[in-house]
């Protein structure tokens, strides 16, 4: 059985890499061995390219959930020059699944909001696998409102299987707090950039997913429901998760085609978990471009663009609708 951190379809790459490592350990290698090393390097690159060019939706889901995939705390270190963490929702408690704080990207000051899933058992328990409670959404909104007051752009990193489905989460109003975020974030007069860095799990993702520039990393996914959840309901068995993953069309290329994301951020060859630093560099450049671009707009323009961004989403047939769409300037009801 391959180690836990190697996905089955990545196996051929690791086999070649192991062989390369063995050869590279030889003292004073012969010219033949040197040639083999060169050939292997080429072969590894080709193999990576080949495998990652043709991943299906379920394989992409596995990449998005890869245990070594960089997470929010990695990016806070690699992308931001400084991070001043801010805690608490001023009402109930500090939710460790949702991290918030001030940060700098070169000279740009921003407010950061992001879910953190945890990179080992201890972290995962502490951060509840990135599944926030209502207080996490309240914490995020509170800091975002503060940022809007001081004109700080907001960067949201989305990485969650979903908002936490628990008894206390329901008691404390999971549905209400997410709904309230959707409404209130739509009003914030400051640029908001959202990036799905791993898992974009449904309402729990959208709760910090309203913004002016929505980006997704190449092998992340963003979905109305997890493939397991969808398979359980529609196929009556979780084992059909690969079918559900395909049917939901939640991979970055589909999301771009559907107009849901503005940008797909390219990952290093072999995906983000193979090269955290390269991923962080690309992501940082993308963030800075987006912030600079959005800072050109007035508050009114930003809010209007943000409204229209979501307003136009949806696919339906109007041909049989005898009512004209209500026109705000028409001065009569429809």
């Amino acid at each position, binding site marked *: 059985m391959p180690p836990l951190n190697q996905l089955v379809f990545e196996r051929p790459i690791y086999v070649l890499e192991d062989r390369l490592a063995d050869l590279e350990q030889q003292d004073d290698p012969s010219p033949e061995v040197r040639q083999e090393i060169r050939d292997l390097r080429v072969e590894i690159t080709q193999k990576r390219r080949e495998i990652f060019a043709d991943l299906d939706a379920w394989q992409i889901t596995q990449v998005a959930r890869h245990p070594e995939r960089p997470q929010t705390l990695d990016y806070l270190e690699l992308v931001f020059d400084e991070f001043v963490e801010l805690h608490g929702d001023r009402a109930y408690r500090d939710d460790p699944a949702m991290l918030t704080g001030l940060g700098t990207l070169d000279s740009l000051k921003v407010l950061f909001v992001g879910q953190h899933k945890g990179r080992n058992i201890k972290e995962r328990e502490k951060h509840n696998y990135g599944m926030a409670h209502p207080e996490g959404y309240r914490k995020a909104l509170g800091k975002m409102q503060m940022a809007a007051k001081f004109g700080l752009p907001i960067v949201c990193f989305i990485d969650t299987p979903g908002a936490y489905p628990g*008894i206390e989460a329901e008691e404390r109003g999971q*549905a209400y707090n997410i709904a309230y975020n959707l*409404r209130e974030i739509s009003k914030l007069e400051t640029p908001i950039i959202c990036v799905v860095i791993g898992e974009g799990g449904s309402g729990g993702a959208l709760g910090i997913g309203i913004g002016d520039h929505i980006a997704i990393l190449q092998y992340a996914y963003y979905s109305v429901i997890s493939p397991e959840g969808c398979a359980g309901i529609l196929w009556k068995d979780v084992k059909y998760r690969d079918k559900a993953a395909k049917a939901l069309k939640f991979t970055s290329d589909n999301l771009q085609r559907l107009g849901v994301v503005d940008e797909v951020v390219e990952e290093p060859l072999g995906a983000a978990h193979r090269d955290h630093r390269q991923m962080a560099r690309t992501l940082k450049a993308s963030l800075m471009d987006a912030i600079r671009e959005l800072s050109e707009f007035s508050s009114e323009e930003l809010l209007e663009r943000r409204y229209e961004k979501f307003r136009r989403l949806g696919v339906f047939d109007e041909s049989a609708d005898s009512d004209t769409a209500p026109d705000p300037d028409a001065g009569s009801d429809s």
Partner: protein
Amino acid sequence: MAKSNPHDWLTHADRDKRGVPAGLWMLCDGCGSTVYRADVEDNLNVCPECDHHFYVPAAVRIAQLLDEDSFEEWHQGLSPLDPLEFADQKSYADRLAAEQKKTGLTEACVVGRGYMRGRPLVFGLTDAGFIMGSMGSVVGEKLTRAIEEATHLQLPLVIVSGSGGGARMHEGILSLMQMGKVSAALARFDQAGGLFISVMTHPTMGGVAASFASLGDFVIAEPKALIGFAGPRVIKSTVNMELPDDFQTSEFLLQYGFVDRIIRRHNLRSELARLIDYCGQ
């Protein structure tokens, strides 16, 4: 007397098969009695024995709440498409056709304007009978247009939600985005001083509860409705514990502070009219 179990709603459709003939008589999910269907219908689809609130189809709900013949429906012809070409064991296109035939509706949402005890308003509902009242592109678009129109007309807005499905899986991410779209429209309505009354009926779950249904200036619930974010089965399997008896009911939400009032169906029209009057609209 059998205790009402709000978590059983998914199985209600099967009841007819278990020996109680459909037609003149029906089995009450609340008390287990066999009750005369006409008595239930005369009683606003509420069990005369135990006050259990049965499902109400769109047309009946409109007749119950709005003044006779006052409802003018908008965008009836707005129809769903199949943007993902989604198919599970059944194609979404076939599912839509079957649901349309079953309910006589083009989609799970009806919007328009009408009068409630003489008060003009914009009215919308989601019908739990159409793909579990779930929100896809059409539901999101109809609600958004209704909210924008209420903003423009400066009329109060009442939306009655019935949705076990939340955001509709068959339209994938586009369904999720409807939550953002509708909520943004409500933000503008709110900023314009509009009055929004949300009425949650059995069941109001997932993406519907986590968007427009929770955003009323007043949040009203019918008794013993199932209301929540995550489905009870998902929660049960996550926490590996028995759920409290009244978990995710209207009464539970009232106790925890997320519902203003629980109102019996018989009083709904008059109480909504009274709330509208308090807000000077």
